[in-house]
């Protein structure tokens, strides 16, 4: 163990809150955002959705669904993408990337559900869907899969807190052993569930062909959502690695540091291919549906911006980056790709939705809605930092080294 700067919790000192409480600029901004978010949360839950959101009857789904749910789920696709690559496809050199990816996926899904509670009129009734299952609804499928997958992710992720808590409660290691045994089952179950609900998020919009602009509406929406979720998964692993290197570099062990560049380049290569395929899918779909004439309208120009600037461009950047072994370029490409995914989800949920309504009846999120979304992201980052500071995510704990080989 060369990297001795990693602060590992021990039986005597379980908590390592120092980095979270230090009054650095980042922490201060975090505290402000969290407290503002808390105030808006109180307002939201005591005064109603209308008191903070610009949602209306024409636009019942806005920022919270468009960003927190659609983007949140999509960007948490790194979990299934990495675990499948590592465990199922046997790319062992991604091993050090698997645990961070599972962590972000778990946090992503957890906070998708948290954000969903803001958007639901009756958040406490969320489990009603299991009591009165509306099996004809795509949303039922999404709900069922997200709930199950969140459980799967929790079990997959629970290895890390077990290792942390074992300092004080050694019996939790039994659970850890059990999870390690069924790891491959969890991974396959996870990818099945992910395929289902990632695509179903697109299927949600199949029911409203009259409302979504024809350039974005397609019977293949589920396919597009699934394919783009793979890109999002790969890109998020790269982008997250970039930020983790900036923020929590000294919690990474030698293996992680050694493998990280390789992970970036391999994922970049994969993402490049998938993005190209996605571009072709969308392009052919546009031709097949005879939507060419829409390209010469305002929405057509916007569609081209999305397709060229946020699908084709990152695909090419990824290709160049991975070919030349340029990690920095791959990281920029990942940001471009992630921005593209977010743009696509925004287009479908907000910008190209209700395209026929006059602009006066269109939706623009209120500052409070945006702040709630920022609040949720801040919570994710804070939870991520807390977990990284306490649990063996970016490093392997010496007690458990080599066990899973």
């Amino acid at each position: 163990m060369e990297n001795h700067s990693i602060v590992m919790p021990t039986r005597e000192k379980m908590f390592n809150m120092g980095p979270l409480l230090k009054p650095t600029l980042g922490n201060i901004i975090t505290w402000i955002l969290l407290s503002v978010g808390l105030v808006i949360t109180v307002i939201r839950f005591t005064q109603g959705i209308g008191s903070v959101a610009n949602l209306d009857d024409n636009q019942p789904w806005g920022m919270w669904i468009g960003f927190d749910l659609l983007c949140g789920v999509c960007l948490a696709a790194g979990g299934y993408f990495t675990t499948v690559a590592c465990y199922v496809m046997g790319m062992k050199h991604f091993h050090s990337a698997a645990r961070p990816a599972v962590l972000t996926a778990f946090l992503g899904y957890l906070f998708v559900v948290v954000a969903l509670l803001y958007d639901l009129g009756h958040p406490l009734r969320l489990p009603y869907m299991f009591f009165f299952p509306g099996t004809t609804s795509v949303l039922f499928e999404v709900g069922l899969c997200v709930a199950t997958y969140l459980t799967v992710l929790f079990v997959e992720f629970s290895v890390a807190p077990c290792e942390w808590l074992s300092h004080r409660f050694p019996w939790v290691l039994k659970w850890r052993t059990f999870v390690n045994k069924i790891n491959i089952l969890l991974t396959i179950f996870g990818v099945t569930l992910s395929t289902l609900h990632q695509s179903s998020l697109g299927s949600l919009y199949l029911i409203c062909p009259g409302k979504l602009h024809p350039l974005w509406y397609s019977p293949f929406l589920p396919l597009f959502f699934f394919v783009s979720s793979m890109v999002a998964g790969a890109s998020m692993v790269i982008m997250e690695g970039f930020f983790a290197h900036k923020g929590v570099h000294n919690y990474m062990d030698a293996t992680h540091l050694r493998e990280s560049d390789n992970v970036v380049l391999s994922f970049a290569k994969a993402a490049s291919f998938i993005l190209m395929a996605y571009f072709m899918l969308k392009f052919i779909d546009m031709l097949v549906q005879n939507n060419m004439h829409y390209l010469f309208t305002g929405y057509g120009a916007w569609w081209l911006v999305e397709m060229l600037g946020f699908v084709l461009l990152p695909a090419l950047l990824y290709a160049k980056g991975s070919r030349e072994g340029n990690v920095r370029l791959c990281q920029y490409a990942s940001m471009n790709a992630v921005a593209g995914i977010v743009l696509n989800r925004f287009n479908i949920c907000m910008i190209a939705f209700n395209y026929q309504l006059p602009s006066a009846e269109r939706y623009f999120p209120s500052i409070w809605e945006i702040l709630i979304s920022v609040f949720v992201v801040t919570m994710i980052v804070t939870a991520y930092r807390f977990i990284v500071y306490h649990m063996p995510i970016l490093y392997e704990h010496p007690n458990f080294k080599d066990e899973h080989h």
Partner: protein
Amino acid sequence: MNRRKFLTFLGSASVASAIATPSTAKASHTFPYYPESYGVLHDTTRCVGCRQCEEACNEVNHLPKPDKPFSDLSVCNTKRRTSATQWTVVNKYNMNGKDVFRKLQCFHCQDPACASACFAKCFQKQPDGSVTYDGTQCVGCRYCMIACPFYAPGFEYNEAWDPLVKKCTFCKPRLDKKQIPGCVEACPMEALTFGRRTDLIKVARARINNNPGKYLDYIYGEHDAGGTAWMVLAPANPKAAPIPPDNPVLAGPEFKQLGLDTHLGNQPMGELTYGALGIVPMIVAFWPVLFGGAYAMTKRREAMHKQALEQTEREAREDIALAVDAAVRKIQETEGEGAADRCRKAMAEALKARETAAKHGEEA
């Protein structure tokens, strides 16, 4: 794009299309057809925009009074939509230069998009034709509002504790008491005709046939979105040539002026999603096999790789042992037993040191 094409596209075509044929899907997903159900025919050529239906709706459903009184007809000049507190509104549209009024409310689809979209089963198509909503199990996700092609349901955004979706109920409580809906009763012009849906279609056809040139030869809602209980007749454009009967494409531009979309298709909106939902069991069944197979292949490859590696190692080790043995025997021959022992020891130590060094290097 129908369900079959979709399945075919997503691969595993033969398996998928063999198991999930459209007919079985229909039987399991669509709502029963109620031949005795009621409907309302809205004849926009008769509507004068008096808003009495709005007033009646407000009264019989005990909705909050609006800011402007119902006698103020200027509100028709701005486009309005239904909301949680206004379950019906009358809008004024300019149709080929003439003012035409149309009443907006829930269309009470034969196979409603909202019911198909609701994941907590709040919406029900009733045998009497109404689409009812049970707020006690509503989660408030508002997917029904996304799904509704008519922009009918409204949501109580400003209610903190029990926000619900609100829409026209077809005056279900009144229907149960053998009364007709409040708006229909209030209409002074019989622009709203209440009756069995099958009869109303006949009435509408008779009106179109008996008044050539007066109506567009298209009953909006007869087939649109899978058919609706509330249907609309629109005036014909006197300047244009009459359109052929039941032609949604040619009637489209005319109905668009009335704010109605004739391009929703003849299938219930929910059917658009059933293709995607039908693929779910396929993925559940096939994905584990696919990925399990990939895992098995990986394992096998790893095992073979490991075996090959071990063999190479063993051969190398044997080679070294033989070489060392040969060397030591030579030393023994030339320099005697003592030198051979020392040599053997040094060789073993050197090998051990190399091994540990190699192991260390792997780790670093």
